[in-house]
């Protein structure tokens, strides 16, 4: 059988760089591996899997370096539903962003068709179809998706010509040179695997510059929104962008009801009391109970949490099965881990509360509560 035939039977392959413990998204990731944390009421990884499946991906490798058992169990079912073959590639030591590709070489090189690689923290309207088209059009070894950001000096920027051929990468530029950064979504020909060994390697720093020098790396600009949701602040910003995009594309998925303001996503099993004001930019998960007279803005309430009457929440994430008391004020990127109890009349500003804590005193300044 020739390569194209095998690709059509096996479908396209993809590798998702799940990596380490997701410490930046603690305290949520103390209870749940990051890929399983619900973003807009769906595990982060499912957003990516669904997008991959929709472009015909049939084999997805998850490059993980921790706690794979829980994730395997929970994801296997979802993968079956989607009809995708999920392969866990375990690293004995963290292999960086390139090493995992070498580790999965057998699968990734099983056909001559290009394969996708993506960082697990990325949320956007995944442009896999256009990416494949663009990649095949230029015919070189790799294409990376780039996205426009407001403050490029915090990132590494990508310089490329009108055709998209990458000329240079500049880490954290002091002077403005470009506002396009690496979006963490790639497509490669299997030949790229010849450049990588099974050892800790950074694809951005050690592989891409070489490929760019050889004229083998192209950039495709991402239409639409993009966010690295690896930390709580960006998780919430990403949610706002996602809900805005949902409004344009599938506004029927958004919740409408009394007291709802702007884009709000509510699981059908959640209950919302009377006299509430929910939104804009709020996600309410399954089995959540919002009592009467609650105001929630720009926040995510995860499965089974309870928010009692008269509380006010802005820019926070309420963890699974947490209980927020009455007349509580949560703001400033407050993150409650799993099963946290916040007593009545408490104020928390920018608190990161570890799982199973009970909070009985206010936290007026940002702080980690062990």
């Amino acid at each position: 059988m020739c390569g194209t035939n095998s690709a059509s039977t096996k479908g396209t392959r993809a590798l998702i760089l799940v990596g380490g413990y997701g410490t930046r998204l603690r305290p949520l990731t103390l209870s749940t591996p990051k890929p399983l944390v619900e973003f807009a009421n769906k595990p982060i990884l499912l957003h990516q899997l669904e997008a991959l499946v929709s472009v015909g991906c049939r084999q997805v490798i998850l490059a993980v370096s921790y706690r794979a058992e829980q994730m395997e169990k929970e994801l296997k079912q979802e993968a079956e539903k989607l009809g995708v073959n999920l392969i866990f590639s375990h690293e004995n030591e963290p292999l960086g962003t390139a090493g995992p590709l070498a580790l999965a070489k057998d699968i990734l090189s099983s056909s001559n068709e290009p394969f996708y690689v993506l960082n697990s923290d990325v949320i956007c309207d995944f442009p896999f179809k256009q990416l494949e088209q663009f990649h095949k059009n230029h015919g070189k070894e790799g294409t990376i998706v780039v996205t426009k950001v407001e403050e490029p000096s915090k990132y590494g920027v990508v310089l490329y010509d009108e055709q998209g051929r990458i000329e240079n990468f500049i880490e954290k530029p002091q002077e403005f040179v470009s506002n396009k950064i690496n979006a963490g979504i790639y497509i490669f020909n299997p030949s790229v695997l010849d450049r990588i060994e099974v050892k800790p390697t950074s694809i951005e720093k050690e592989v891409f510059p070489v490929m760019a020098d050889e004229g083998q790396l192209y950039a495709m600009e991402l239409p639409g929104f993009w966010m690295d949701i690896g930390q709580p602040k960006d998780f919430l910003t990403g949610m706002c962008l996602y809900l805005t995009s949902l409004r344009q594309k599938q506004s029927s998925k958004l919740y409408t009801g009394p007291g709802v303001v702007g884009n709000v996503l509510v699981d059908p099993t959640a209950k919302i009391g009377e006299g509430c004001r929910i939104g804009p930019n709020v996600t309410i998960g399954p089995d959540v109970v919002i009592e009467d007279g609650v105001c929630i803005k720009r926040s995510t309430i995860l499965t089974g949490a309870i928010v009692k009457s008269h509380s006010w929440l802005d820019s926070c994430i309420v963890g699974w099965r947490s209980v927020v008391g009455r007349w509580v004020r949560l703001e400033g990127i407050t993150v409650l881990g799993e099963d946290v109890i916040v007593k009545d009349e408490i104020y928390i500003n920018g608190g990161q509360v570890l799982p199973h804590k009970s909070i009985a005193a206010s936290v007026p300044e940002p702080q980690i509560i062990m």
Partner: protein
Amino acid sequence: MLKAVILVGGPQKGTRFRPLSLDTPKPLFPVAGRPIIQHHIEACLRLPELKEILIIGYYPQVQMETFVSDMQNLYNINIRYLQEFTSLGTAGGMYHFRDQIRSGNPCAFFILNGDVCADFPLQDLYSFHKQHADTALVTIMSTEATRQQSLHYGCLVFDRNSGVVSHYVEKPSSYVSTFINCGVYVCSTDIFAHLAEVFYSKSQEYTNYSLINGANGKDQGHIQWEQEVLTPLAGTNKLYAIPVPNWWSQLKTAGSAIYANRHFLELYKNTHPERLANAGTKLSEQDSNLMCTIFPDVYIHPSATVHFSATLGPNVSIGPGVTVGPGVRIRESIILENAVIKDHTLVLHSIVGRGSIIGQWSRVEGTPSDPDPNKPFAKMENPPLFNKEGKLNPSITILGCFVQVPSEKILLNSIVLPHKELSRNFKNEIIL
């Protein structure tokens, strides 16, 4: 026949009570729904022999006359306000108005400082004084403080059997005694002869030296009761003291108003239970026994509008014409006349000024500075506004009159001067 003198000072006093004292004289600031000195008056009324109350101070007559005529109408007793032409000190005013105090030949008269709050045990004080009527010119009501806190008060040493005060010193720099002066006294009218001696010896001095040195800008008739009368009287068998275990506090800072509010509400249980709102959880709008959910003790003025779904208390006073919206929570706070608190808002350890408006889902919160409950005899600390680093010490939050707090904002440990429209969150700030 007995009389009472309530010393209220004047506008230059009570500055630590700002911004609340900017529009109301501090003695008329409502605590537990009554102007502070109305509590003094009510304590005096419990003595049937007491026939006249004289309020002495140098607030302009116009600021006091409504209150005085209200009191006259309310209680069937003679109450007058005597205005000093200038600040004459704690004793100078009494000496100036000596004829008014002595007229009708009272067998004794009480002196109550206007800025103390207490369960004034005037009958006990008078009974004790009467036992020593042949020698006692003044009997001081005394209470015990901690060693450290005693330095902020007048300290006295007295014989536990006879009550004779052997030593008196005002605000000593080193420890003298844990027994302190409560600012409540009973005096024989013979005290005026003694005051006259002080007055004449001072005026002698005044003529001799003031032409050269000035008199510190004070009037010739200025006499300090504690330093110039009590200290010399100690050790002469004419000054007595009776220690009382009852609750007592000074009302210096606005923070102490909330502490005083709690205790005056507590006293109502015995003296005026009808003033306290019925306590309990309001389960339905139809429950006519409760105005809303109340954790005792709470005072609500009859003209206030409180939504049945609000939750008030403990230690809350709601003034006349106040509107408390649905789902509002108020604890440890005083809400003054015509203030409006909108839906779902939380007010903790705060004083909300007259006519102020707080929007929905806001949080107005202060930090209490109550005495340490674990230290016996601890009194209210009255910390300075700023600490050594120049930062505002956390205190109760105070909104002056006609302040507007928008919806969904937080105001923490802040003091807002009158007529301010806030537009953002404030923490640990004074907002001019």
